[in-house]
């Protein structure tokens, strides 16, 4: 079970009315390397991985939902007061005719989310290597969104999220080391 805290993991402030940023940010909402894919991937892999690293997958999978909520907040703030004309100019007219201003799990090109984005191979090393790759891809996606963004407040939150991907990758790399069992007993921090 989960305990929900009714606040964001890190504050989300949006300083410019730029709905086009919402179009880019949705890549991290329902895209292949986005936060939804990450959360579902890790929480699902937990059942068939050695006990020693189950807790790590629970922690990181849970945190990914906190990130999903931050991305949702950014997209919502960027679109909630935009006119249909502004949304069309921003390239999300197609989204508008299907969803109005509701959020939906798609990537930046409008492709709907699919479970084929994630894998559970049942082989602990294969799964952890996928997780490491997923974290590096999410980190890179944040870099490219920051490159496209002109909003310093959004960038501040995106930098926080990108830093978390670095930490997640580090922890998954350590999980591989634990499963290799070729070092002296190590403490987990």
């Amino acid at each position, binding site marked *: 079970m989960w305990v929900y805290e009714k606040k964001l993991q890190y504050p989300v402030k949006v300083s410019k009315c730029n709905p086009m940023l919402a179009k880019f940010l949705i890549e991290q909402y329902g895209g292949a390397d986005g936060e939804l894919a990450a959360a579902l991937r890790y929480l699902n892999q937990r059942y068939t991985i050695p006990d020693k690293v189950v807790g790590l997958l629970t922690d990181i999978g849970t945190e990914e939902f906190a990130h999903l909520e931050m991305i949702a907040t950014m997209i919502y703030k960027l679109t909630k007061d935009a006119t249909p004309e502004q949304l069309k100019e921003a390239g999300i007219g197609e989204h508008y005719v299907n969803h109005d201003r509701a959020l939906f799990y798609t990537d930046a090109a409008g492709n709907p989310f699919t479970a084929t984005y994630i894998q559970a191979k049942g082989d602990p090393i294969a799964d952890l290597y996928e997780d490491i790759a997923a974290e590096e891809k999410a980190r890179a996606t944040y870099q490219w969104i920051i490159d496209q963004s002109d909003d310093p407040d959004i960038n501040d939150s995106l930098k926080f999220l990108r830093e978390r991907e*670095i930490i997640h990758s580090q922890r998954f790399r350590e999980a591989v080391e634990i499963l290799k069992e070729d070092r002296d007993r190590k403490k987990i*921090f």
Partner: protein
Amino acid sequence: MAKFTLRKQYRPYVSPFDPCPSIRVKTYVTPPNLYVGFQPEKLPQFNAKQALFAGTLWKVFYDPYYGSEEKEKGGGQ
């Protein structure tokens, strides 16, 4: 020896017939998690407030990324 950096560079092939102005130096990121291995004990920490803003408690893993626009305004590495 060159100073260590988490931003690497390479020079791609440049053609005299490139349709756009050639980018002569390309960069890529090699984040700190590539270098640390299993995290050793007693690494330096940020204080709690700094850690929230940095996104990590551990100084060794802090690696902020600045966008192209921010770099033009003088931010970043």
